[in-house]
C-alpha cells in the first residue's frame, strides 16, 4: 500500500501532450467553454438553481401535510405535481447532475493530473444538452395542464391517463422528453469521465493511487452509463404509448366507464425497467458521496483513510451488486412473490461492503488529529444520517418486513435520510472544502457553522420521527390525511412539527446561497492549499487553476493520496507529487 515510486523510476510519458483548444473570446471562455472547470461551475449552478425549485416545492407539500385544509390553492392535483417534480428534480437534475457533472468535471482532471477531460468539445455539449433538459422540465410548469403528477416513478398506466395531472396533457410528454435529453447529455459527459480516468491519468498515477473521490465518481459514472439506457427505453416506450397509442405498458383498461384502445401491455415491465435504472441510481448518487466523504475525513483528520484497498473494492462491489437488487422496490408490486427470496438476499448482502465503508470512515477518526472544520462537521453528520438511513434500509430490503412498511411514510423517511440528506450533507461539506480552490477564497466560517447546525439537526428532526408515521401505517403520496382512522390527533401534530422544521432547514439554505455569492468577493484569501491536502488539485501553480490546470509541466505522482502524518516527515502531509520516502518502514500492520 505504501508504495512510493523512487524519483528515478517514473515511467516515461506514453504519448506527447496535445495542445488544448484555447478560447478566443469571452463567449468561448465563460459560456461555450470547453474547460472542464467552467463546465463544472455551469453544471453546479444550474443544478442548484433547479434544486431551489425543488426546495420550494417541498415547502408547498409540507404546507399541505402540516396544515391540511389551510391552503386552498394546494389541490390534490397540485400536490401530486409538487411531489413528482420535487422527486424527479432532486434525484436526477440536482443530485446526479451535481455529483457527476459538477464535482466530476471539476475534480477528475485535476485529481488524476490531466489538463482537461479527454473530449472537451463533447463535454461542453453535455452541459448544453443538460441545460436544455432542465428548460424542457421547467417549461412543463407553464404548459396547459401543468407538470405531470404521476409521482417521480411515473408508473403507467396512471402516468398517461386522465385521472393523473398532466397524464393526457403536456406534463408527461415534457417530463419524458426532458429525461431523454438528460440521458443524452449525461452520456456525453459520462463517456468523458470514464475515459479520462482510464486514459488521462498523469505519470505515476496508478489506479490504486487514485483518491477515493475519483473512484466513487468513476464507478458511479460507469454504473450510470449502464443503468440510464433502461430508463431511456422506458421513456421512449411510454412516449409511444401516450402519443401513438401503442401498448407497451398498457393492458386492456376501462377508464371511468370507457374502454381505452389499449390491449396486452404490461405495467410491471415498466417497473422492472424503471428500477433496473432506479436502484443503481441510488448508488450513482451515493458512491460519489462515499468517495468525497472519505477524502474529507482523511484530510481533516490528518490521517490516511483506513483500509484504502478495501474501500476501493467495496465501491466496486457495491456498484456491481446494485445491478441485481432492483426488484426490492417491487416486493408488493404483484410480481412473482418467489423473486422476493432472491432479491432480499442480494439486497442484504450489499449491507456488508456498505458497512465496511462506514467502519473504515470511523476507524479513520480513531487516533487521528481531528480538526473540526466545517467540511469535517458535515462528514460526521453524513455518517450519522447515512448509518441511520442505511439501517432502515435493512427493514425495507428484508422482503417480509417491507410488506407493512412499503408505500408508507417509513419509505419516504428512509430514502430521504439515506439518499437525500446524507449525500447533500456531503455536497455541502465538499463545497466548503473545494470552494477555496474554485474561487481562491474561503466561505464565511460563521455563516457556515450556522448553516451546518440548522441543516444537520433540522434534517434529522424532520426525517427521524417520520419513520414512525410510516410504522403506524400512514401511506405516502396522500394529498390529504383526513378521514383516516389511523391518523391520531398527535400524528397530525407531528406532521405540523415536521413541516415547521422543513421551513427552518429551507431557510438555512438561503443563508448558504448568500454565503456562496458573498464570499466570491469578500471571503478570506485561501491560498493554494488551505487544508494542507495531498491530492493534486491542491498542488496547482495557480488558484483558481488556469486552463490546462498544471502550468508548463504535468505533475508526476510518486505516492498514494493519503500520506498524512507520515512518521519521520516534517509536515503532517506529503503531496502526491513529492518524491522521496521519509522515516522508518511503513509496512501495513
Amino acid at each position, binding site marked *: 500500500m505504501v508504495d512510493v515510486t523512487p524519483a528515478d523510476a517514473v515511467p516515461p510519458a506514453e504519448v506527447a501532450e496535445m495542445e488544448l483548444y484555447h478560447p478566443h473570446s469571452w463567449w468561448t471562455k465563460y459560456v461555450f467553454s470547453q474547460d472542464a472547470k467552467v463546465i463544472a461551475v455551469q453544471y453546479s449552478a444550474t443544478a442548484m438553481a433547479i434544486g431551489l425549485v425543488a426546495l420550494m416545492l417541498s415547502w408547498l407539500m409540507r404546507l399541505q401535510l402540516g396544515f391540511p385544509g389551510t391552503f386552498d390553492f394546494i389541490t390534490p392535483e397540485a400536490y401530486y405535481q409538487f411531489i413528482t417534480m420535487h422527486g424527479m428534480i432532486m434525484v436526477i437534475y440536482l443530485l446526479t447532475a451535481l455529483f457527476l457533472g459538477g464535482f466530476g468535471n471539476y475534480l477528475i482532471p485535476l485529481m488524476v493530473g490531466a489538463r482537461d477531460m479527454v473530449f472537451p468539445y463533447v463535454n461542453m455539449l453535455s452541459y448544453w444538452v443538460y441545460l436544455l433538459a432542465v428548460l424542457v422540465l421547467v417549461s412543463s410548469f407553464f404548459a396547459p395542464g401543468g407538470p405531470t403528477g404521476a409521482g417521480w416513478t411515473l408508473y403507467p398506466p396512471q402516468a398517461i391517463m386522465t385521472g393523473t395531472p398532466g*397524464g393526457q396533457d403536456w406534463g408527461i410528454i415534457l417530463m419524458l422528453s426532458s429525461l431523454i435529453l438528460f440521458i443524452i447529455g449525461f452520456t456525453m459527459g459520462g463517456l468523458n469521465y470514464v475515459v479520462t480516468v482510464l486514459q488521462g491519468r498523469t505519470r505515476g498515477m496508478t489506479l490504486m493511487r487514485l483518491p477515493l473521490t475519483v473512484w466513487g465518481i468513476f464507478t458511479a459514472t460507469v454504473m450510470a452509463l449502464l443503468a440510464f439506457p433502461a430508463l431511456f427505453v422506458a421513456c421512449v416506450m411510454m412516449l409511444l404509448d401516450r402519443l401513438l397509442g401503442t401498448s407497451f405498458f398498457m393492458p386492456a383498461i376501462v377508464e*371511468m366507464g370507457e374502454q381505452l384502445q389499449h390491449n396486452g401491455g404490461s405495467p410491471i415491465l415498466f417497473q422492472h425497467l424503471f428500477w433496473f435504472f432506479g436502484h443503481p441510481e441510488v448508488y450513482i448518487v451515493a458512491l460519489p458521496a462515499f468517495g468525497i466523504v472519505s477524502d474529507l475525513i482523511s484530510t481533516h483528520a490528518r490521517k490516511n483513510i483506513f483500509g484504502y484497498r478495501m474501500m476501493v473494492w467495496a465501491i466496486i462491489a457495491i456498484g456491481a451488486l446494485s445491478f441485481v437488487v432492483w426488484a426490492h422496490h417491487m416486493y408488493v408490486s404483484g410480481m412473482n412473490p418467489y423473486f422476493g427470496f432472491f432479491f432480499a438476499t442480494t439486497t442484504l448482502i450489499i449491507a456488508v461492503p456498505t458497512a465496511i465503508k462506514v467502519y473504515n470512515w470511523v476507524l479513520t477518526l480513531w*487516533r487521528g488529529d481531528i480538526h473540526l472544520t466545517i467540511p469535517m462537521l458535515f462528514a460526521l453528520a453524513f455518517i450519522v444520517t447515512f448509518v441511520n438511513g442505511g439501517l432502515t434500509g435493512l427493514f425495507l430490503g428484508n422482503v*417480509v418486513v417491507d410488506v407493512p412498511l412499503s408505500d408508507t411514510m417509513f419509505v419516504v423517511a428512509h430514502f430521504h435520510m439515506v439518499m437525500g440528506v446524507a449525500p447533500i450533507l456531503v455536497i455541502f461539506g465538499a463545497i466548503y472544502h473545494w470552494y477555496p480552490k474554485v474561487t481562491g477564497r474561503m466561505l464565511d466560517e460563521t455563516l457556515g457553522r450556522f448553516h451546518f447546525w440548522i441543516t444537520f439537526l433540522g434534517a434529522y428532526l424532520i426525517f427521524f420521527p417520520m419513520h414512525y408515521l410510516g410504522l403506524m401505517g400512514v401511506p405516502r403520496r396522500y394529498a390529504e390525511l383526513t378521514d383516516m382512522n389511523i391518523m391520531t390527533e398527535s400524528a397530525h401534530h407531528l406532521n405540523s412539527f415536521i413541516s415547521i422544521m422543513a421551513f427552518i432547514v429551507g431557510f438555512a439554505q438561503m443563508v448558504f446561497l448568500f454565503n456562496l455569492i458573498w464570499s466570491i468577493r469578500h471571503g478570506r484569501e485561501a491560498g493554494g492549499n488551505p487544508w494542507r491536502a495531498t491530492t493534486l488539485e491542491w498542488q496547482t501553480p495557480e488558484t483558481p487553476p488556469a486552463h490546462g490546470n498544471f502550468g508548463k509541466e504535468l505533475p508526476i505522482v510518486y505516492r498514494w493520496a493519503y500520506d498524512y502524518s507520515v512518521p519521520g516527515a516534517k509536515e503532517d502531509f506529503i503531496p502526491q507529487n513529492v518524491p522521496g520516502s521519509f522515516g522508518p518502514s511503513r509496512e501495513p500492520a
Partner: protein
Amino acid sequence: MAIVLVLVLIVVGSVLFHLLSPWWWTPIASNWDYIDNTITISFWITGIVFAAVVLFMAYCVFRFRHREGNRAAYQPENRRLESWLMIATAAGVTALLVPGLFVWSRFVNVPGEAADIEVVAQQWQWSFRLPGKDGKLGTSDTRIVSAENPLGIVPGDPNGQDDVVVEAADLHLPVGKPVKVLLRSIDVLHDFYIPEFRAKMDMIPGSVTYFWFTPTRTGTFQVLCAELCGQGHPLMHGVVMVDTEQDYLAWLGQQQTFAQLSAPQQTGAATQPSEKTMASSLDVAAKLETLEAR
C-alpha cells in the same frame, strides 16, 4: 466540542423517542404478528449498531480532537480487524435475513383451506366478489366491463353465475378463517392495504395478484389504497368488517349474485336507476366530487 455532545444526544434522544413516543403500529388484527416480530428483531439489531457507531464516533472526536502538537497515527490497514468486522456484519445481516425469509415463505404459501375472495379496484373505489356456493370464482375479462357488468365477469362461465358481487360497498369476512385475497384492477395500479392486517399487495390491470391472511378479531377496518392511482388516491377508502360466523352468514344472505344482477329487469328498463349507468365521459372532477361527498 458541541458536536460530541450532539452525537451523544442523538443516540439518547432517538432511543428515548423510540421507547416513549405515542406513534407506534396499530393493534394487529391478523395472523401476521410474525411480521411484527421480524420488525422488532430489526429494531434491536439496527438500534444497537446505530448506537455503537455513533457513540464510537463521538468518543473518537472527543479523544482525538486536534490539540496543539498532536499528530495522527499512521496505519493504512489492519487486515485482522477488517476481517472481523466483516464477519460480524455478515452475522448481523444473517440474523435479520433468515427469520425474514422464513416468514416470507409463510406469506407466499397460501394454506389449502383459505377461501378465495376477490377485490376489484378502479378509480377510486373498491368492489368485491365472493365465489358463491360452488366455491369457485368465474373468469373475468376487463374488455367486457360495462355498467351492467362492472366487474367484467364472463357471462358464459357457469362458475361465475353464483358469484356474490359487492359493488362499491363494504366487505364482510368471518373471523378466524384464512382468506386468499385475489386482487384485480380494471384501470390503473392500486394497492389493497389495511394497516391492522399488515399485509398489502398491488393490483395490476391485466393480472391477478394475491396475498392471504386470517382475520383474528372482529371489528371494522378501513381499507386504504397504497399505490398512487391519480388525484382521487387519498380518498380511495373502503371498509372491511370482520364478523362472527353468524353475522357473516346473515350479511352474505342479503347479497346478490351475478346471475341475479344480470337477469333481465322485468320492471322495465325505463325505470332503471340512472346512477347505475356508468359515467360515459371521463369527468374526473365530477368523480372526485362524489368521493368528497361520501
